[in-house]
């Protein structure tokens, strides 16, 4: 019986280890290659002299930092706008009963699931006409389709978890509605709000379709710009790896911070892990 259990455990851990290799090795390989010089690229595997020349080439001698900061600007402001407009909306959906409430909530959710190209094709035409093509404002606006539904749906769940009595008690203490919201509720949803914002940031950061079609050379995000490192005639694999590594870094770091709230955010509040 004990032996059977030991074998069981060994098989279990073996399978998990296999999957872990599948999930992590590509990332490890990417970082590894980013330290390889072009000369060592073809004749070495794991043992080589690490060099920073790829990092120098990409970060100092191309516009990589410009792409990086374009991504930062667009994603951060998109999330801020969504927080400012979305948190009150989430509160309204959680606390008030009004006509068409669920319809409104599902309309907002459906924005997230509309095919991106369906939005982009007509928007491309509109943006060209009203001068929003290839601007920060244009991208930040369209990014709302990614960040807003996420924030509203996830934060709504956190508001629903808070007992109404807390609000009533605060009202009895003489707080106005606005003060209750700021001083009693916001501190309670803060962990949820921070993690939902970080996840929204990651989604915005990772988006590819919108910047590919709605911006050109003035505003270029990192996901679109990174593909350039493939397209060049003489492919510098090391530089490709650097571009991928640096652009993946912020998302992975943020993901580490929000482990506890990840399930809830990813499922838009449908699964409360």
């Amino acid at each position: 019986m004990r032996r059977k259990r030991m074998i069981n455990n060994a098989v279990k851990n073996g399978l998990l280890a296999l999957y872990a290799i599948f999930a992590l090795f590509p990332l490890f390989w990417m970082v590894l290659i980013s330290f390889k010089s072009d000369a060592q690229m073809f004749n070495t595997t794991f043992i080589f002299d690490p060099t920073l020349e790829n990092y120098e080439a990409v970060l100092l001698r191309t516009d990589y930092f410009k792409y990086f900061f374009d991504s930062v600007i667009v994603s951060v402001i998109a999330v801020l706008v969504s927080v400012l407009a979305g948190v009150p909306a989430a509160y309204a959906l959680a606390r008030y009963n009004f006509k068409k409430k669920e319809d409104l909530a599902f309309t907002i959710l459906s924005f997230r699931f509309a095919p991106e190209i369906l939005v982009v094709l007509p928007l491309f035409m509109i943006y060209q006409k009203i001068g929003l093509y290839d601007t920060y404002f244009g991208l930040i606006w369209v990014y709302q389709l990614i960040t807003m539904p996420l924030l509203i749906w996830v934060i709504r769940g956190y508001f629903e978890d808070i007992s109404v009595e807390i609000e009533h008690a605060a009202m009895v203490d003489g707080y106005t509605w606005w003060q209750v919201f700021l001083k009693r509720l916001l501190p309670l949803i803060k962990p949820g709000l921070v993690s939902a914002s970080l996840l929204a940031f990651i989604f915005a950061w990772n988006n590819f379709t919108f910047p590919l079609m709605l911006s050109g050379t003035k505003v270029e995000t990192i996901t679109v710009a990174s593909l350039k490192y493939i397209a060049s005639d003489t492919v510098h694999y090391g530089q490709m790896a650097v571009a991928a590594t640096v652009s993946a870094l912020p998302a992975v770091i943020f993901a580490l911070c929000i482990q506890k709230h990840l399930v809830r955010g990813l499922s838009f509040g449908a699964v409360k892990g």
Partner: protein
Amino acid sequence: MAFNKKDAAKNDLNTVPWLTKARPYLIMAPSLLITIGILVPFAMAIYYSFTSYTFKLPTFKFVGLKNWLNMFKDPAFWHAIWVTIRYAFFATIVEMGLGLGIALLLGNTENKFTKFLRVVLTFPLMVAPAIATIIWQLMTNNSVGILEKFLNIFGVYNFPWAASHATAMFTAVLIDTWVYCPFVIILILAGIQSLPKSPFESAKIDGGSAWFNFRNLTLPMIKPCIYIALLFRLMASLQEFSIIFALTKGGPGDTLMNLSVTAYNTGFAFQKFAASLPIILVLWVIVNLTAKQIVKKWQYSQKVASGRDAAEGGKS
């Protein structure tokens, strides 16, 4: 009416002030105004699909159903539908199967190894699909990629990966799985970890086999989580654009031309804006109908899960 008004004026306290009634709508307004932009392009997409609009010419005219009929006559459209369905089917099946398996393996054991895995397994999910494709190109490249060296051990040389008609779909699904399988894992894992203990304890006393426990206890109770994962994955893989575009732009030939990529090519590369709209509208209908079916199943499974839960509680 007159009576009501008078009555209301008499005791103010019983009527809801206009501002209070409107408050939820007012609070919602900014978020709706910002996102409502999407309804405009959507309405425009339907309208322009009946015109001859291109980006090149300033004038266009109403052409009725021409774009739609041309699309239905075009074999490339039916090919795109077939590719879309195959891609979504394979990606979803593999991710759901593998995700469920890994989640079940992780769920029951609590030690340092599984705790570590739970955190690091989410990393691929955080990498942008376009960037993930670059990473996999570094892996599958035949001159610098590690996978070529690995396959050489087994006597396989120059495996073509995304470059060949026969293996391009496999490569794309592999990348899709790498990125999104963690999503399925952590959703199902959340379901497994929230399972109540008592039904499993009583099953142990009754001497139920592991398979019996899984089929009759675990599965019905984690079904809502499974359906949520399925909903998200199926809808996204039906529309997948980033991975395919970054990998081969739909090639080699038309191997990976799904509806999204076809619409992009028709609209941007060939500049036939109006002709690209019916393609993407068809995709929208497919996605919506699929989502509705799964949402229905999800709602039903939630009822069953909570019902079984109560029944088990009563028995033990």
